């Protein structure tokens, strides 16, 4: 009896050992594959600053996100996830926002993240002496008040319901207070944040190297080291990806996307972006003051042909005034489909002066094939009898021309892009079309001004109910779509090509990507 029992125990023991050995064999490759030693990313330009409050370029805001983390993280679907902020509460009038901080968070230099640090961050953002180019995005915030060690209160000048989405911007990411004391404004070269990565090397014009932050409060990243290799020529970056010299190629050329897609070892991801490309039409000066002329110009352009033939389908024609990726987007019932006959008829109704030459301007190289798009628009307008002179400008000169007040403005027809930094229509509909943003105060270079529209947009900012706010945004969209302050061209796609070995790379419509938790086969 005893012998039988001991033999049974012996068997059970062996089965247990066998299971453990099998488990070890099965799990071992997974655990070793999960940790990636190095990831090389080819990018086009070097960063000017890694201070999140100063940065305006999406790619470097992306790097800032990895170093500093965000208050909230907006995923590709637009859902907000708590990061350095655990939650928030809004008062009924929408003027007071209570922010609850994540506890037990420390910066990579060991400094604790608390209400004092967040208040310091907000004080810096709101200080007019500080260089904060995107301050307009939080211009509604009056002040930040500390409530306790892990709670702050934001007092607003006026209600602004999409403020929660604004919290996902790198603009409001906190910097270690100890680093600010140590480096002062040189912190732009010595970034210290609470994110999953730490800047370990920055060789100007060559590479930016990030290594894993061992003190990171969240889940440990799967990649030990990320090297952002600066390779200005897109074709060279593509060649490096093909040969395996880099793992991710940032923004390959649209003309080569089809070829890259055909490669078995490369994945090309192209989520629709928030950036819309348009031809601004001056609504307060020149021939484009007439709504019928603006509508005629919209009918005169074959936007689908532009997207298909020039942009190689790395864009999609606009069917509403904002990108389909953002909250507030509604596909418009009426579309300006290519119809040169109708365009000519509208011009006739508007008594258009065909002897006048319209001045068209375009940047060269700022957006995907911008010059080529402008050339085609010029040709389409000439096809309906409109004389157009096209001029290209370098970017700083071009921007200076956009910011002049109406008295000095020489703008008639101009190509521009507008990409909201978070997934909400406010930044596009308010930031481009309200009277308040007409230059020089804002960037609404079409000088569109409609009091009814302004009232609706102001009401949308105060409205906290999502459905009611959506209805207001829809109403505003319909008005502006009909008024045509732009030739509605296309919504760009964010193109990212990477090795097919990489899995779980997060790519967002705000032109960002997060390799923090990728796995590699």
């Amino acid at each position, binding site marked *: 009896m005893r012998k039988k029992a001991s033999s049974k125990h012996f068997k059970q023991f062996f089965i247990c050992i066998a299971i453990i050995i099998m488990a070890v064999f099965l799990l071992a490759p997974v655990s070793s594959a999960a940790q990636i030693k190095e990831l090389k990313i080819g990018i086009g330009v070097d960063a000017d600053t890694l201070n999140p409050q100063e940065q305006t370029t999406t790619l470097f805001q992306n790097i800032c996100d990895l170093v500093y983390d965000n208050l909230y993280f907006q995923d590709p679907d637009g859902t907000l996830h708590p990061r350095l902020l655990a939650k928030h509460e809004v008062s009924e009038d929408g003027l007071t926002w209570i922010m609850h901080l994540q506890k037990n968070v420390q910066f990579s230099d060991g400094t604790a993240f608390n209400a004092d640090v967040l208040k310091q961050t907000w004080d810096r953002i709101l200080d007019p002496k500080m260089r904060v180019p995107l301050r307009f995005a939080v211009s509604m915030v009056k002040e930040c008040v500390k409530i306790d060690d892990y709670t702050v209160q934001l007092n607003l000048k006026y209600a602004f319901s999409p403020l929660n989405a604004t919290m996902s911007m790198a603009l409001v990411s906190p910097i270690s207070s100890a680093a600010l004391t140590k480096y002062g404004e040189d912190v732009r070269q010595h970034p210290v944040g609470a994110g999953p990565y730490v800047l370990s090397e920055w060789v100007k014009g060559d590479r930016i190297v990030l290594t894993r932050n061992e003190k990171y409060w969240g889940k440990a990243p799967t990649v030990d080291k990320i090297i952002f290799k600066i390779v200005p020529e*897109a*074709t060279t970056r*593509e060649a490096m990806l093909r040969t395996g010299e880099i793992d991710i190629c940032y923004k390959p*050329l*649209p*003309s*080569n996307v089809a*070829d890259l897609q055909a490669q078995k070892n490369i994945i090309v991801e192209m989520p629709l972006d928030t950036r819309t490309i348009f031809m601004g039409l001056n609504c307060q000066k020149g021939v484009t003051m007439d709504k019928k002329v603006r509508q005629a110009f919209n009918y005169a352009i*074959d936007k689908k*042909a*532009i997207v*298909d*033939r*020039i942009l190689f389908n790395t864009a999609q024609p606009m069917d509403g005034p904002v990108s389909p990726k953002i909250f507030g987007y509604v596909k418009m019932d009426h579309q300006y489909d290519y119809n040169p006959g109708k365009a000519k008829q509208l011009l006739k109704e508007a008594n258009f002066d065909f002897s006048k030459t319209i001045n068209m301007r375009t940047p*060269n*190289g700022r957006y995907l*094939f911008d*010059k*080529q798009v*402008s*050339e*085609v628009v*010029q*040709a389409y307008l000439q096809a309906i009898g409109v004389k157009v002179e*096209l*001029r*290209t*400008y*370098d970017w700083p000169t071009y921007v200076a021309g956009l910011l002049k007040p109406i008295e000095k403005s020489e703008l008639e027809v101009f190509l521009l892009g507008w990409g909201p930094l978070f997934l909400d229509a406010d930044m596009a509909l308010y930031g481009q079309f309200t009277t308040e943003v007409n230059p020089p105060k804002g960037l609404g270079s079409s000088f569109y001004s409609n009091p009814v529209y302004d009232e609706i947009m102001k009401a949308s900012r105060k409205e906290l109910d999502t459905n009611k706010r959506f209805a207001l945004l829809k109403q505003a969209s319909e008005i502006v779509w009909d008024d045509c302050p732009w030739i509605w061209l296309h919504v760009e796609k964010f193109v990212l090509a990477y090795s097919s070995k990489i899995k779980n790379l997060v790519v967002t419509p705000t032109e960002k990507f997060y390799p923090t938790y990728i796995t590699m086969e």
Partner: protein
Amino acid sequence: MNNIYINTKNNDIEPDEDVKSSSGRGWAKLKRNKAALMGGIFLLIYIGCALGAPILFRGDPSAPNLMDSLSPPCAKYFLGTDELGRSILGRILYGSRVSLMIAVGVVGVGLLFGVPIGLISGYYRGKTDFIIQRFTDMMLAFPGFLLALALVAILGVGLENTVISIGISMVPLYIRLVRGCVLTIREEVYVEAARAIGTKDRHIILRHILPNVLAPITVQTSLGMGTAILFAAGLGFLGIGVQPPTPEWGSMLGSARAYMMGKPHVATFPGIAIFLAVLSFNLLGDGLRDAFDPRSKI
């Protein structure tokens, strides 16, 4: 040896047989130079293309046809089409007009300012020469293309401004060249003789000195045209030269860069056009220098 510089038509001294034969020898030497001859033939073809563009290509070289974009060379499009579906052949032919216009314009600006200033500087010497030469030094301190780039940034883009900018960047080269020649010629016996009989400075400069610096100027003009085409193509490539949709070789090349991997023909043909045009001027310029440079005869 110096007699070869004497203007045989306008000088009071009667031309002798030796002078005539020196000039004739130069032309004979040029004809024997195969490279220069080839340059000349290329140049004739180039000028022929520029003048005959509307006959050789019927249609608008600037009108896009998106449905035929990036078509490879075929029966319909001999050299294929660009990203907007425009015939590359048509754009190269019409582009040759633009580049020839730029080359002539640039050299014109260079000659217009460079030659008179160089003559004055070399003839009068002294303070005038000092001031002009320091100013020339300043301009020469910048590489030619950089100077043209800076001038375009100030003047703005466009065909006229491209011509003016590149032309101005070439002015110091002509000043230096002419001044150098004048410094030698002004010491010649026939100039001294003209001065001794009371001939006015203006007369001496225009009648005795200018005709004798024409040979080096001709050489520089030929080489300068090649450089002008290259500079204009460079500015066009950067997008700050001649404006779209005007066909210009440099901007064609600049736009084609994005399609190099998949559609190399878009960049290849404008590149060949620039290469041949510049080569023709350079070969001819070198030939002229070999034929008329006095040092090469010693």
